[in-house]
């Protein structure tokens, strides 16, 4: 159905535009809390693009990890530092021209890579779809060693957190 495909295409471009607006908000707004909310909105928008590209699992994990956990952590940190939450802060300082130059260089690099890559479209690549089951089998089969290394790292981090957060033995004065 060409009309629906057309509408979907326009919808995707509209979503991309909205993501860009929110992403600009993240780096230009004066209030840190507003920036964090814009970041959440931009991340949700990216998840919706994943859905359009038929990567539903990635979209779900994106929302669960980035919006549900990372942004919440950011907001938590902002709210714990009470003086920061209500204040407006400058988003740029004297080093911004340098940063813009570095950014332009980086964008040129990425741009050349994108242009030079042939992006081959083969029928096999179009037909293959990463399923949750396939991911699970890969993690338990071919990639079991990195998976275990990551889990050991996570456990080390958890134990470390508990030890740091543990109450010190009270010193009687």
């Amino acid at each position, binding site marked *: 159905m060409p*009309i*629906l495909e057309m509408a979907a295409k326009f919808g995707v471009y509209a979503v991309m535009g909205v993501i860009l607006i929110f992403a600009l908000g993240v780096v230009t707004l004066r209030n840190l809390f507003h920036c964090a909310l814009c970041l959440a909105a931009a991340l949700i928008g990216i998840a919706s693009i994943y859905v359009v590209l038929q990567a*539903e*699992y990635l979209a779900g994990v994106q*929302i669960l990890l980035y919006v*549900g956990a990372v942004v919440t952590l950011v907001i*938590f940190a902002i*709210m714990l530092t009470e003086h920061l939450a209500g204040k407006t802060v400058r988003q740029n300082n004297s080093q911004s021209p340098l940063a813009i130059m570095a950014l332009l260089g980086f964008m040129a690099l990425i741009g050349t890579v994108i242009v030079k890559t042939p992006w081959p479209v083969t029928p096999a690549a179009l037909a293959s779809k990463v399923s949750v089951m396939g991911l699970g089998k890969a993690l338990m089969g071919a990639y079991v060693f990195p998976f275990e290394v990551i889990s050991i790292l996570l456990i080390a981090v958890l134990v470390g957190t508990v030890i740091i957060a543990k109450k010190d033995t009270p010193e009687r*004065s």
Partner: protein
Amino acid sequence: MIPPMLRGIEFNVDMIFVTAKAWILSLLAQFLPAWLLVLASIVISGVVILCLGPVIMMYLTLLERKLLGRIQNRYGPNRVGKWGLLQPIADGIKMFTKEDIVPANADKIVHLLAPIVIVVPALMVFLVVPFGERMTAVNLNIGLLFFIAVSSITILPIFMGSWASRNKYSLLGGMRTAAQMISYEIPMTLAVVPAIMMSQSLSTNTIVLSQVGDYDLHWYIFTPWGIVGFIVFFLCATAECNRPPFDLPEAESELVAGFHTEYSGMKFALFYMAEYMNAFTLCAIAATLFLGGWQGPFLPSWLWFFGKTFLLICVMIWFRGTFPRFRVDHLMGFAWKFLLPLTLLNILLTALWQFTSNLAAWFWSILILGISLWTLVKLNRTFVPEKRHYPMGN
């Protein structure tokens, strides 16, 4: 005359809603082009869900007030309409006509956005709820992950509301909400894992289908890991939608009304609506995962589904009528020191259940569960905290 689209669809009570939708679509097909018909199909499902959510919320408030009334030995609302059936509509009119008060120092935009945003995830999770046989609005193959992910967004609008109000009670309520919801999300997600393991699917529809058996009573709750998973999931669900005894974020006696202290009129009603819709969807998912969803003998599937869900909601209301509120440290300790180890053990137990014979598995499961429960209760025994000394106190 039977329209062409209806051939092959049997006419019975079980399929009454599916048939109704197919009938409307076949009626529309006579004067709409094919591409508009696809949209019409989406719009029908969408409109049904958009109406279902608020209507369920309205009558849940009535059910809750009636049941709480009976628990407290009084009648509950009975003046507006027969048995107070028009009470929710009267409440709605009252909410609409109330003055909308915004605090002078509030962050106007965020204050306005918070109650609007909170309804969106609450309505979106309705998409993957299997209301009956062939009655899932969108049969996503990651249905359960979608549910967990979307319901985790609910923290953000609560934060927005509590921060934008510039009120210390709101802020305290918001901080408590975040701590509570993040903590209880972990055991809730882990409690779901056994059901995913046994049905080998994340799709809510497939999970229901995998619980089919003799008389459609092969529900996961009738296994040792199922009942542990169900109890943990249900407790976490009660905590996730901030209902008593886990209602610390809005504890009336401590924080006025927590994160929605500064909201009035329809904005307050939207917070309320999201809370009740979340309670409904969480009970619906609990019924889907462990109580066999729409499976059941004799009655039509959608009746089984709504019966199970409303039974769970009545249990939630019963909790509210009988349990006192948790203390903050008890609340956190319960999630991290009791529910989390229990769910991790439950996942191992499910694997054991999968690979051993039936009778021996029952014996070992109950033995392991009994020992671990005893150990966890012993480890979590009440203790008198050390008295704090404040040097500047005197």
